[in-house]
């Protein structure tokens, strides 16, 4: 709060984003390709005994039927909120050090990354459990919808029994 002195040397301010409690969670919904390495990088932590990453890619077929491409639609504000809930559960239940959770929307080609979830924990077993919980729960609660395009039409996945 002092007036400052423009002649004094600039203070060196070192700032490590990961040390701030509420930035240990990184949730993103992207309409551009997912950068797996950014997720892995985000969860890198000096105390991590293991980092587990789930990468979901677009499959070339569904029940033997050739898929041409895929489209994801999301109800974005709520999708972010639900992804954050999952990440918070992961932080709490498995003592995760950090969670990065990116989901793609828009049109995707075969082999492209649809979702990447990275979790770091002090002990590796927890990272496997937590990461699996995250992807399983995403598929149940997060308002994102997948439409598959076939040669003879298109269909919203999981919409029909």
């Amino acid at each position, binding site marked *: 709060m002092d007036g400052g002195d423009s002649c004094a040397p600039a203070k060196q301010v070192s700032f490590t984003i990961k040390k701030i409690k509420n930035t240990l969670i990184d949730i993103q919904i992207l309409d551009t390709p997912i950068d797996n390495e950014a997720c892995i990088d985000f969860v890198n932590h000096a105390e991590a005994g293991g980092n587990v990453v789930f990468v979901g890619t677009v499959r070339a077929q569904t029940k033997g039927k050739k898929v041409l491409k895929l489209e994801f639609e999301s109800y974005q504000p709520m999708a972010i909120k639900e992804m954050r809930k999952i990440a918070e559960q992961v932080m709490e239940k498995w003592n995760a050090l950090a969670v990065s959770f990116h989901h793609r929307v828009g049109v995707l080609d075969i082999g492209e990354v649809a979702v990447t979830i990275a979790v770091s924990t002090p002990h590796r077993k927890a990272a496997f459990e937590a990461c699996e919980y995250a992807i399983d729960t995403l*598929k149940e609660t*997060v308002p994102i*919808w997948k439409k598959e395009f076939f040669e003879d039409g298109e269909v919203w996945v999981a*919409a029909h029994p």
Partner: protein
Amino acid sequence: MKIKITAFGIAKDILKTNSLALEITNVSTIGELKDHLCQEYPDFKKLQKISFAVNEEYQTDDFSLGENDEVIVIPPVSGG
């Protein structure tokens, strides 16, 4: 009561729009709204499940709707 319906995924296809202003009478809860929509748009009955959100949160059947609420129709999700 006036509410706004916003739909995603196949619900959008069933309603033939992603947004709908609805004047409802005899409907005061999410459960009643669900019944109403299933009556007006029978294709909803073919879905495995249909959920609703208000204020960016899932709401149960007994949730009381208020004037000008925005109700999101959430067909089975399929992210990941």
